């Protein structure tokens, strides 16, 4: 089951047990929520292809005391209705769980309109958000379930790209210990980072929760390796978490190389996800070369 299918089945179950939950949709995934809507007609809402209203409805439901879970593709969940996120959630002082699918280029042949590498960077301009970037469907299920209680604003970024195994611990988890430096892999980037750094003497940290950023975990890893050189590999805009790394290491002379979706070109490629990985240097070989150059 993909992360998106896991999310859909998880919410289908959760709606039955928590009467405060509501799912708000803009046509995407509405068919899959069809039977849940029959059971809970007032708590599964499809606003049609109206993404400004999608987020505002969530804001209004939260004002009334509900816990809305809002879902569509990342480009139409975060980028198109950004002011609604800023004002109808954050500025109203209410919260919702935003769950996107599509990620940076999960629909490669659909073109730029359906690619959303800037979603996490945009959410970063707003205060007090949790941002989860699961790397496996089991992590997605865990992170969705953990986000449902409470009133926080949460962004969960689901992807068709996934690692072979889940890693369910919170914060930055050290999956490999080395003494030459630190590589941070976020969400679906893990398996290719492990492969790209295989045989090297590097610490590999993994995060599926990137906000709040685990600064203490990074400092501990840098201390135990004794080298404040960090490669950050994120599946969205390159350098999105660079300022958090810089802040975490502000009292240590350090070097940082950020890998991620390139910022300086309008990518017009179609093809497969692998073609886009290659275009952005996020394939295993490109990561291996970048890491080797950085640590030589």
């Amino acid at each position, binding site marked *: 089951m993909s992360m998106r299918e896991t999310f859909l089945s998880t919410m289908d179950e959760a709606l039955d047990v928590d009467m405060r939950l509501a799912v708000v949709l803009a046509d995407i995934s509405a068919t899959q929520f069809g039977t849940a809507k029959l059971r809970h007609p007032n708590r599964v809402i499809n606003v049609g292809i109206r993404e400004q209203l999608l987020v505002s409805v969530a804001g209004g439901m939260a*004002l009334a005391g509900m816990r809305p879970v809002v879902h569509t593709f990342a480009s139409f969940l975060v980028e198109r209705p950004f002011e609604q996120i800023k004002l109808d959630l954050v500025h109203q002082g209410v919260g919702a769980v935003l769950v996107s699918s599509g990620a940076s280029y999960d629909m490669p042949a659909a073109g730029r309109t359906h690619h959303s590498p800037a979603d996490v960077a945009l959410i970063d301009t707003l205060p007090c958000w949790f941002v989860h970037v699961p790397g496996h469907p089991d992590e997605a299920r865990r992170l969705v379930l953990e986000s449902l209680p409470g009133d926080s604003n949460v962004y969960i970024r689901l992807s068709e790209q996934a690692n072979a195994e889940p890693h369910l611990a919170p914060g930055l988890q050290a999956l490999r210990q080395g003494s030459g430096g630190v590589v941070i892999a976020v969400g679906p980037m893990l398996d290719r980072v492990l492969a790209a750094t295989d045989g090297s003497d590097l610490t590999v940290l993994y995060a599926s929760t990137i906000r709040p950023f685990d600064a203490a975990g990074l400092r501990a890893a840098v201390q135990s390796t004794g080298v404040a050189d960090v490669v950050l590999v994120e599946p969205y805009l390159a350098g999105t978490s660079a300022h958090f790394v810089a802040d975490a290491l502000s009292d240590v002379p350090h070097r940082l190389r950020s890998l991620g979706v390139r910022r300086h070109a309008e990518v017009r490629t179609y093809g497969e996800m692998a073609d886009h990985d290659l275009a952005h240097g996020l394939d295993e070989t490109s990561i291996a070369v970048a890491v080797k150059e950085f640590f030589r």
Partner: protein
Amino acid sequence: MGFMTTATEPGFADLPRLLSLMTGDEKHSAASTSTLDVLWVLYDRVLNVSPTRLRDPARDRFLLSKGHGPMSYYAVLAAKGFLDEGELTNWASAESRLGMHPDRTRIPGAEISSGSLGHGLPLAVGTVFGLRALRLKRPKVIVLVGDAELDEGSNHEAIALAGREAMDQLAAVVIDNSSSTHGWPGGIARRFDIEGWVTRTVDGRDHDALAAASTEPHPGHPLVVVAVVEPKD
């Protein structure tokens, strides 16, 4: 204009004085603001709200979408006991919680923070969905918008869905002072009518007409009251 004034509760006649606390203008009159009559009628005769029941789930909700020029709103909130009138004099200063646009997290009784246009009606639709999910079928959700504010496309997403969802808990009051740059040929009510709303167009200065239009039932349909006032100069 039917209203009553008692020694303890300020009435409509007190609003010019409350407004002048904010403007410093002695001659400030009700006619100089497009929203004062509507706001007064809603708080005095339509809304089931009270400063003693700010978090009551069964209260009516009033959403001031048109957050610009909130002096009338603050004057009415002060007259109805949500604010102390002593707060009005230093409004919009760093020491005040009353801004040029209202902040719901700071003002008792303000249901939304507004200022950017086109957010109130969509938030009101969400609030009705929330009330329905909580099985609260009685509270009304009334949102005040301006005719120029309807330029924002987000309103039209909300108008269509509210009509199709038969939201009879929802009412929009549109202050029409002919301030929309490109206008609404055929009238504002028509935009709501075609989407399944009950529409009533009244004189925005006539308190009895405003009260009747806002309170007469509209089962199975959302309601729009178009309150026509003098064109903005």
